[in-house]
C-alpha cells in the first residue's frame, strides 16, 4: 500500500518530456518533487505563472509571487507571468498537457466530484471545473477509500459533480486504474503488497481485471 508520497512518485512516471503540467493542491503538489531527471517539464499555476520553481529561501519570500495554493514560490529562468484570462486560455485551449487533481469521488465513467459536500461549508471550485472540463489528460490522485473504509471509486458519484466523463487515469494508495472509453475501469497496476482481491473489495465501480496485474515499479 502506498502513502501520499508513493502516489506522487507513481504519478511522476506519467510525466513526459515537454509536458506543461498543472498540479492541484494536496497530493498532486508532491508530484513536483519526483520529476525524472532526464525530462524537461514546466509547471503552470493558474493564478498566473509558467515556470514555477521551488519555495523561496527564507528571507527572500515575495508577497507578489505565489502559486494557486497562495504559497510563496520562486520563478525559474524562462518563467512568465500572465493574467487570469490568459491562464485559463492555456488550460481551456489544451496547451497544458497534464492536470493532476485530488478528488472526493470518481465514477467508472470518469466523472469527478471534488468541490462540494452538501450540508458542509462550500469553499468553491476555484479553477477545478475549468481544469477538468478542458484538459486532455487528467489524472486523479486520491486515497482509494474514505476514513470509514468505503470506496471512493464508484459506479456513480454521490456528491455534486465537478466534471462529467473527464478523468483518464486514477492513482490511489492501492492501484492504478484507467477509465475505458466504453466506460468502466481497467486495473493496470497494484500497489506494492496489495492483492487484486483487496483492490476489488475496495472498489465499488466496475473493474476490469484482465490477466496478470503487475505491481507498480517505484524507484525510491
Amino acid at each position, binding site marked *: 500500500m502506498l502513502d501520499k508520497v508513493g502516489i506522487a512518485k507513481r504519478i511522476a512516471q506519467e510525466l513526459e518530456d515537454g509536458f506543461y503540467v498543472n498540479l492541484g493542491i494536496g497530493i498532486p503538489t508532491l508530484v513536483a518533487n519526483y520529476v525524472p531527471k532526464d525530462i524537461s517539464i514546466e509547471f503552470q499555476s493558474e493564478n498566473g505563472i509558467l515556470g514555477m520553481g521551488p519555495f*523561496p529561501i527564507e528571507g527572500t519570500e515575495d*508577497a507578489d509571487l505565489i502559486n494557486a495554493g497562495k504559497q510563496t514560490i520562486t520563478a525559474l529562468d524562462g518563467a512568465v507571468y500572465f493574467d487570469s484570462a490568459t491562464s485559463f486560455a492555456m488550460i481551456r485551449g489544451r496547451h497544458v498537457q497534464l492536470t493532476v487533481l485530488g478528488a472526493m469521488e470518481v465514477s467508472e465513467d470518469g466523472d469527478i466530484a471534488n468541490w462540494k459536500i452538501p450540508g458542509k461549508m462550500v*469553499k468553491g471550485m476555484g479553477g477545478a*471545473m475549468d481544469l477538468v472540463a478542458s484538459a486532455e489528460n487528467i489524472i486523479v490522485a486520491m486515497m482509494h477509500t474514505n476514513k470509514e473504509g468505503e470506496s471512493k471509486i464508484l459506479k456513480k458519484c454521490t456528491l455534486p459533480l465537478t466534471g462529467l466523463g473527464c478523468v483518464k487515469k486514477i492513482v490511489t494508495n492501492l492501484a492504478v486504474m484507467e477509465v475505458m472509453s466504453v466506460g468502466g475501469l481497467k486495473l493496470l497496476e497494484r500497489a506494492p503488497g496489495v492483492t487484486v482481491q483487496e483492490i476489488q473489495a475496495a472498489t465499488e465501480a466496475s473493474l476490469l481485471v484482465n490477466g496478470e496485474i503487475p505491481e507498480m515499479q517505484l524507484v525510491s
Partner: protein
Amino acid sequence: MIDKVVPNVHIALSGIKDGMTLMLGGFGLCGIPENSIAELVKMKTTRLTCISNNAGVDDFGLGLLLKGKQVKKMISSYVGENEEFERQMLSGELEVDLIPQGSLAERCRAAGSGIPGFYTPAGYGTEVAEGKEVKFFKEKAYVLETALEADFAIVKAWKGDAAGNLIYKATAKNFNPVMAMAGKITVAEVEELLPVGVLDPNQIHTPGIFVQRIFQGKTFEKRIEQRTVR
C-alpha cells in the same frame, strides 16, 4: 494625453454608493487594492455586490468589508480562508455565487470587450450549468456564460502613469487586467505613479483607455497568506 490622476483614494472612490457592484482585483491577498479596501471600510458603504476571485481573510482584504457587514453578495471562485464569511454565509446574511475561476476571468474580459456571451466547457454537467444554454461544437458540450459587469472595478498595479497605463508585478497581475477592462469606472491604485513618457509603450499591461482614475497608494502591507520556504 488624457490625465487620469486623482490626488487620493477618497476622491478615487467617490461615487461608490450603497447597493453597487464592485470588482476587486487580486488572488488571495496577492495584488489586492489594499488602500481602496481600507477606504471602503471608512465609507461604510453597504449592500455591496463584490466580484473578486477570493474573499480575503478575517482581518485583511475583503474580510474587512465582510466584518463590517458591508457586503450583500460575493461572486467568487473560492472563498476558503475566512471564518466570518462562513458564519454570514451559513446564517443566510450573505449571498454567494460561486463561478469557475476561468469563467470568472473570461466573463470579466468579455464585459470589457463588448462580448455579451461565450461558450465554455467548464461546468457542463454540473450544477453550475443549471438553467444555462448548452450548445454542441464538434460533438462536445459547452455552456453559455455571459459578460459580468461592474459599476466600479478597483485594481492594484505596480507601476502606472498619468495616462492610466498600468504594469503589474509577477503573480500580483492575476485578475487585475481583466477587471480593469470591465468597470464602468475603473480605479487603479499603484505602488509607483510615474510621469507620462517614462513607461515603455511596449511593456504596458493595461492600456490607459481602460482606466478612469489612478492614484498613488499610501501604504502597501502586502500581507503573505501562506509563507512557505525551502
